[in-house]
């Protein structure tokens, strides 16, 4: 019984990281109606920035984390401005290909600067493993759960209670009507990319503290898993991304432990297909038929 709970908690830990990344996919989709395939690579950039600031510049952890988050937020805004904004009226296929190109570009830049050899990274989270009865939860997992929870609450409050959050919801529903209200659509889109990328940076930090190794392709796998999580939860839906991410992590962890670690990815995608068959818009998605 204890080990089931342990697996569940570990699953919640990885699921939280998926959820943080999935939020970026879903928010950007909601507002810009595009899948930002370079989003996963922001995690990788975050990991390298953390490495440079902590290991090379020996900055205090708080400063390093702040710089990492800021760097990624600015990177997100910049990517949108130079790569996606000129394509706002272009066919969605052109945007998709640009996003994939942007993903390769970020990975190539990392390859150029840091080369392909994985860099070992010592976790910046120094919290001891907690034992409750026969359940052991690692300090990294605990911090991951806590940080994710705080991020989700803060984001939910921001979206539902603030003027900027309402403006974001208005823009994602109807850009022209939002402009008639005086809302600057470009600024709102920039803000969405900034928030999504900042959350990806947080996910990147938590991710490298868990896996303690950095390489240029580090963002690819969690990126694609988080994308699946966003679709599972209903792309465009913020609570959907949260639930989708957490669910994915738990399914993964349980099936790894009790079914087969080789079949895990097959099971994850199986669940996705099943959910989409029953509810094409995802768990919390709007029942809107969308042509892609």
């Amino acid at each position, binding site marked *: 019984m204890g080990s089931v709970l342990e697996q569940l908690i570990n699953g919640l830990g990885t699921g939280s990281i998926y959820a943080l990344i999935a939020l970026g996919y879903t928010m950007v989709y909601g507002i810009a109606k595009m899948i930002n395939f370079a989003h996963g690579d922001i995690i990788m950039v975050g990991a390298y920035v953390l490495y440079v600031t902590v290991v090379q510049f020996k900055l205090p952890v708080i400063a390093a984390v702040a710089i990492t988050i800021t760097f990624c937020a600015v990177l997100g805004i910049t990517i949108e401005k130079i790569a996606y904004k000129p394509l706002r009226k272009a066919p969605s296929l052109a945007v998709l290909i640009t996003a994939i190109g942007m993903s390769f570009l970020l990975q190539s830049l990392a390859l150029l600067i840091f080369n392909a050899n994985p860099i070992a990274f010592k976790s910046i989270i120094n919290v001891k493993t907690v034992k409750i009865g026969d359940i052991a939860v690692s300090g990294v997992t605990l911090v991951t759960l806590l940080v994710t929870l705080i991020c989700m609450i803060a984001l939910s409050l921001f979206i539902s209670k603030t003027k900027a959050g309402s403006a974001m919801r208005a823009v994602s*529903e109807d850009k*022209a*009507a939002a402009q008639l209200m005086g809302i600057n659509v470009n600024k709102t889109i920039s803000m969405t990319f900034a928030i999504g990328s900042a959350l990806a940076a947080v996910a990147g930090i938590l991710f490298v503290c868990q896996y303690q190794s950095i390489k240029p392709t580090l963002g690819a796998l969690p990126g694609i898993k988080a994308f699946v999580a966003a679709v599972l939860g209903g792309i465009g839906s913020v609570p959907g991304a949260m639930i989708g991410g957490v669910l994915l992590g738990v399914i993964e962890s349980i099936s790894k432990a009790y079914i087969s670690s080789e079949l895990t990815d097959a099971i994850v995608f199986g669940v996705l297909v099943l959910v989409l068959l029953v509810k094409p818009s995802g768990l919390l998605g709007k029942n809107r038929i969308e042509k892609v």
Partner: protein
Amino acid sequence: MAMLTIKDLNVYYGVIQAIKGISFEVNEGEVIALIGANGAGKTTILHTITGLISPKSGSIDFEGNDLIKIPAHKIVSLGMAHVPEGRRIFAELTVLENLKMGAYTRSDKKEIDNTLEMIYKRFPRLKERKNQIAGTLSGGEQQMLAMGRALMSHPRIILMDEPSMGLSPLFVSEIFDIIREISESGTTVLLVEQNAKKALSIADRAYVLETGNIVLSGDAKELMNDDSVKKAYLGE
């Protein structure tokens, strides 16, 4: 000098010319009706005025501001509100959140609350439903919300695009009563309507639009008695 002056406006969708060199003006305090059949170009004109579409040529002067040079999101703070065709309320926001979006560019919280109270007085139904998700309102209520949302910016001129479209006769009368009230409270109104009879009955002057051209203009009461208008738009 008129409050709003449109001169030689030409608007294209790709190669198709939707507005063909039209000019007209709106004086402060007037109710101006822009009438014409479906596809005549009424919505295109309003969208061009509030910056949602860029014209190929022409000028739009609003109290000394050249609106063509001003981005769409900066126009409402000049004192011009636009109630778009099909209402375009934010269906997933609550009624109150929609109204607050209307006051997005205003910062004085006390004045915003005063305007909100005034709007609740004019549209009691919106007050009753303030915490309801806007998409669940009836068509007539959504139109009231769209108008209330526009009034939240405290505009000096309000542009309305077919506010009576798709509404039951009871709601249509109510909407036109409200437009008259808005005008009487000192706000200038530019009203686009297919319901020519109702529009002419509350307007001071009117312009008749046909395939991108203004074909007739003048005093609303006179136009109501014009034989060609009667035949084409009033079904008499």
